[in-house]
């Protein structure tokens, strides 16, 4: 029986020194779709940080729309930036030991169409405000995705025990 969800490379587990970014590189083009799962927290002196997501090192061609639930209201925002934004990742002032989850799905990542991105993320910290995001992203580029980078917008580090996994999904 085919194994359709395959771990690509080794999981990223951030060590005690922290990491300035998470990078999946040399992604093979042998799968149909890719899926990334991350549990992260940064060292920024705030409740929240944002992670900037880029493909192949490119800083152009990104658009997104997000629907956000805060625990008391829902709203929507979006726009164009030099990256796709994962907003509301826990920072150093968030409840201790809370890490926030993200799942990012990219179908036909190695094809020649523009790349559609679906991203779901949560920051739940047992505080008054919590955040649940659904994001639609588009990278208007026909290149196959060979690398994905997550960088804290604040310039802070990702802290120890941040983890990231990349899966390849085959349709045959």
């Amino acid at each position, binding site marked *: 029986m085919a194994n*359709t969800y395959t771990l690509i490379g080794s999981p990223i587990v951030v060590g005690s020194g922290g990491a300035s970014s998470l990078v999946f590189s040399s992604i093979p083009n042998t799968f149909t779709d890719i899926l990334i799962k991350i549990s992260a927290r940064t060292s920024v002196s705030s409740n929240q940080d944002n992670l900037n997501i880029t493909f192949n090192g490119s800083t152009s061609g990104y658009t997104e729309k997000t629907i956000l639930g805060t625990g008391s209201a829902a709203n*929507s925002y979006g726009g164009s930036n030099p990256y796709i934004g994962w907003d509301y990742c826990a920072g150093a002032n968030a409840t201790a030991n809370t890490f926030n989850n993200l799942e990012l799905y990219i179908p036909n990542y190695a094809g020649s169409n523009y790349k*559609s*991105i679906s991203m779901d993320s949560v920051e739940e910290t047992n505080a008054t405000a919590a955040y649940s995001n659904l994001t639609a*992203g588009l990278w208007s580029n026909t290149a196959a995705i060979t690398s994905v980078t997550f960088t804290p917008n604040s310039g802070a580090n990702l802290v120890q025990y941040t983890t990231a996994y990349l899966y390849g999904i085959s349709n045959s």
Partner: protein
Amino acid sequence: MASTYTPIATTTLGSAVATYTFNSIPSTFTDLLLVANTNQTSTSSGLSLQFNGDTGANYSFTYMQGNASAASSNRASNVYSIDHNYQNAGTWGQTYININNYSNTTTYKTTLSRASQANTLVMSHTGLWRSTAAINSIKILVSAGNYDVNSTFTLYGIKAA
């Protein structure tokens, strides 16, 4: 390694079409996952599903959506298919739809989906088909225009054990 996600069928469109159907879906899985990566040729169109050729008003759905300026929610009852996305032409987007416990013959069938069209909307839908029949075919419709060339549809079977 055990395989929990098994490809049942896939297609890459060689020409634009308004519908695509997965037939003869085996009953041997627990759940189904449909992944659609589409460009829809009409200015405004939606992807929707019908099951087992049922064209009656036996479907309902509820959704929430964001358009980058506001979040909203709405629903429809007694309609002829379950909507799962809405997008503008020229926008590559994706929709993945979970259809749980699809082959049981006791309960009505539910769907849960996420749709991401960055130039149009971000959406999440739940749907209901009021039938106890096991799902053996899925028809993917578009409300206007066509699914463009190179759009892909893949159906996975998921086993609980």
